[in-house]
């Protein structure tokens, strides 16, 4: 993906476009699953055409009600959530949301969830035939459901198995695998997914955490534990993205606490081909557009013609 020295168009501003598994993104700023609804919720607050892509809320074949409240709690520079995969179901998404998203010039990636392997395969097969879906993101790393999901990210062999099976179930769509940080060595899981045919990796999902109300002595979340997200997890995410980039050849999409263009640049320098903005969407709905603009400004200020000059450009001390 290195640009050639003659391939320059300085008058048109820096080139921010990236490609992931044959899909072209106008810039490397995407929104993370679970933090951007089905995309259209944010249309009043930003120009959806200004971002590279939208990863929609995790979808199962049948609607899921989710966990009883309380589901969220703010912690130092972050938040815990245990939503429990509440979603309207893939068929309702395709009928009610996807046509609206087609009005925007951005990419739509669908995050898929399931309690059992068969449920993942069913939703993957269904979405494979849906025009307007540009890639699947396999969610095997959600810590907030009792069974399934998370199970496939406990052993690299399980990650390999589910990746291979979903790969076969949706041959048309690029398959991204979203990895959990709640493992000893993320590189093993990254390699397992790559070997099984994943086209890209999304790194990372939330870190399992907990908070307790000392007056009632109850957990702040009814599910007891939840996924920690937000700026608090950025250093951990950045380290894991950097590790994953060393371990595989397929593109890595960096996720974890990104709230500014500078945050996004850190992940790109560490080797991520693109980034996903998550929790920051909650407190600044237009943040992804601002980050995309910020990347352009950084490139101009540093006389960088193409974002690929930044990707994986981490330097060492002498």
């Amino acid at each position: 993906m290195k640009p050639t020295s003659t391939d320059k168009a300085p008058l048109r501003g820096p080139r921010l476009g990236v490609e992931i598994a044959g899909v072209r993104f106008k810039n490397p700023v995407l929104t993370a699953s679970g933090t951007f609804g089905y995309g259209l919720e944010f249309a009043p607050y930003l120009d959806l055409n200004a971002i590279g892509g939208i990863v929609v809320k995790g979808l199962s074949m049948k609607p899921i009600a989710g966990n009883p409240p309380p589901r969220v709690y703010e912690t130092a520079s972050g938040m815990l959530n245990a939503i429990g995969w509440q979603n309207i179901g893939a068929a309702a998404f395709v009928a009610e949301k996807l046509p609206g998203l087609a009005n925007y010039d951005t990419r739509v990636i669908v995050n898929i969830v399931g309690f059992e392997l068969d449920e993942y395969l069913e939703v993957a097969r269904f979405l494979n035939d849906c025009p307007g879906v540009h890639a699947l993101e396999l969610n095997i790393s959600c810590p907030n459901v009792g069974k399934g999901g998370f199970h496939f990210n406990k052993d690299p062999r399980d990650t390999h198995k589910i990746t291979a099976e979903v790969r076969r179930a949706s041959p048309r769509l690029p398959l991204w695998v979203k990895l959990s940080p709640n493992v000893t060595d993320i590189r093993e899981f990254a390699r397992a997914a790559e070997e099984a045919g994943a086209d890209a990796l999304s790194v990372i999902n939330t870190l399992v955490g907990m908070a307790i109300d000392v007056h009632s002595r109850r957990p702040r979340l009814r599910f007891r534990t939840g996924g920690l997200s937000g700026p608090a997890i950025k250093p951990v995410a950045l380290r894991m993205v950097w590790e994953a980039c060393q371990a595989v050849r397929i593109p890595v999409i960096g996720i974890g606490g990104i709230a500014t263009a500078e945050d996004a640049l850190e992940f790109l320098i560490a080797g991520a081909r693109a980034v996903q903005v998550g929790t920051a969407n909650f407190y600044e709905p237009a943040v992804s557009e601002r980050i995309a603009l910020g990347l352009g400004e950084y490139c101009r200020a540093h006389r960088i013609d193409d974002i690929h000059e930044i990707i994986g450009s981490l330097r060492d001390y002498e």
Partner: protein
Amino acid sequence: MLDRKVKIKEIRDLGAGNHLLVITSPEQARLVRPGQFVMLKCVEDTGGNPLLRRPFTIFNIHRNARSGKPAGLELLVKEAGAGTRRLVMARPGQVLDCLGPQGQGFHLPPDLSSRVATACLVAGGVGIAPLLLLAESLLALRIRPILFYGGATAADLVLRESFERLGIDIIYCTEDASHGERGLVTGPLEQFLRIHPRKDTRLYACGPWGMMRGVHELAVGYELQCEVSLEARMGCGLGACLGCVVASEASEGRSYPLVCQDGPVMNSRLVRWDIAPI
């Protein structure tokens, strides 16, 4: 549905940790319906503590002294944690991120007076916040509001002069009898409903979960309709994070309604009162 940077016009200390926050935002003020809320955060607070915006019910529309036109919003902020502390320590002129007005307010169709003659407004502490705009709308619809306003002590009965100015009947209750009757607000409410058993009475409640549950149970007992203004911890306030749900009688196997979008005002019969959202 607007996200705006707004300036603090005034912060008035109301005592007992309560503050009236007045912000300048004519554009948002023009859109407000009784029961709606805004999400607030100081713009300087980026990526730290507090992280998320906080939801606040709109207490009143601030009007231009001369023209009477909507100029901003008045919000009741009770210091309860890091997020609210940050807001009440802000200074006039400081800029806030303000998203809103959000959510479903009270159900106030133009022909409401054909079914409702008396409205019992029940507030516990800062639960008073949505009831001023509601009382004004009810008066405009020629429905008689009666306010039942309870708090732990007299100091918790904030902003009561705003209601006294409307000339409506008000029953105050405090747990220590420092103002009005002694005890919980549901006591005098029940007494009223017993003495005035009329089907054209409607209940509106906002306050602690237990109080709203009590009002709901009275509504069921007296076969009256009841709307409650719910509170929940919110991630985004715009329907994306799915964090602010309430367990619902109507949600069997389907989904949990969102306080930010399907609420904050809901029919009390849709709420499952055995599962508190906070």
